[in-house]
C-alpha cells in the first residue's frame, strides 16, 4: 500500500517536473524543476528496493549536479536569461522557437510510439516473475560487487573523475589575451 502510494507520487512528480523542464520560460526554473524530477526518480528507486542507488541519486544529482547547473546558469546569465523574443504561443519564448519545438515534438512522438510498441512486446517476452521481496539492504552486496566483479570499472571511474576534475579546471580557467 505504502509502496503503491510512493510509486504514484514519484511517477507523477517525475513526469510532471520533466514536462515543466521542457516548457518553462526561465532557465532557472527549468533547473529547479529538474530537481523535482530527480527526487521523483529517487523515489522510484526506493520503490524498486534500491536503497543505496536512491540515496546516491539524491546526494550526487540533487546535491551536486543541479547545484552545478544553477551555478552555471547564474555565471552565464546575462542577456540570455530570458532570452531572444521568439515567442511560441506565449509558451516558451526562451531558447527555442516554433520550428525547434515542432521538430522536437515530432521526433519525440515517433520515438515514443515506436518504443511503446517495443516495450509491450518486451513485457510479453519477460513474464512477470515475482522474486522474494525486497533485499534486506543492498549496501553490503553492492560493496562486494564493486570490489570483486566490477573492480576494473570502479578503478577506471576514479581515473575518469580525476580527469574530469582537472579537465574542467583547465578548460574554465581565465586566460590572458
Amino acid at each position: 500500500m505504502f509502496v503503491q502510494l510512493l510509486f504514484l507520487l514519484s511517477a507523477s512528480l517525475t513526469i510532471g517536473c520533466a514536462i515543466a523542464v521542457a516548457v518553462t520560460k526561465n532557465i532557472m526554473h527549468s533547473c529547479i524543476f529538474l530537481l523535482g524530477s530527480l527526487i521523483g526518480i529517487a523515489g522510484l528507486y526506493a520503490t524498486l528496493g534500491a536503497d543505496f542507488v536512491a540515496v546516491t541519486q539524491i546526494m550526487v544529482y540533487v546535491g551536486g549536479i543541479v547545484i552545478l547547473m544553477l551555478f552555471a546558469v547564474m555565471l552565464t546569465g546575462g542577456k540570455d536569461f530570458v532570452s531572444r523574443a521568439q515567442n511560441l504561443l506565449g509558451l516558451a519564448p526562451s531558447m527555442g522557437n516554433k520550428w525547434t519545438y515542432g521538430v522536437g515534438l515530432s521526433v519525440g512522438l515517433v520515438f515514443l510510439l515506436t518504443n511503446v510498441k517495443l516495450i509491450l512486446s518486451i513485457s510479453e517476452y519477460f513474464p512477470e516473475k515475482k522474486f522474494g521481496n525486497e533485499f534486506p539492504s543492498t549496501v553490503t552486496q553492492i560493496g562486494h560487487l564493486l570490489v570483486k566483479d566490477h573492480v576494473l570499472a570502479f578503478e577506471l571511474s576514479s581515473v575518469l573523475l580525476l580527469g574530469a576534475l582537472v579537465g574542467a579546471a583547465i578548460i574554465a580557467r581565465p586566460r590572458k589575451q
Partner: protein
Amino acid sequence: MSLTSYLLISLVLFVIGLVVMISRKNIVAILLGIELILNAAALNFVAYSRFVTNNLDGHVFSLFIIVVAAAEAAVGLAIVIRFFQIKETIHIDEATQLRN
C-alpha cells in the same frame, strides 16, 4: 508496479529529454535534457535488475551511470562557462567554430 510501468515511465522521461535537447537553444538547457536521458537509462537498469535478473548488477550499472553523468556535467559546464567568456552568450547558434 510492474516492469512495463517502469519502462513506460523511463520511456516518457527519455522522450521529454530528447524534446528538451532538440527544441531548446540554450546550452545549459540542452545539458538538462542530457541529464534526463541519463536518468531514464539508469532507471531502466534498476527496473530490469528488480524484475528480471534478481541480482544487483543493474544497481552497479546505475551507480556508474551517475558517476559518468557527474563527470560529464562538470566538463560540460566548464565548456559552457568558457564559451560564455569568449562569446558573451550561451545561445547554441553562436557555437560555430572550434578555435577562438
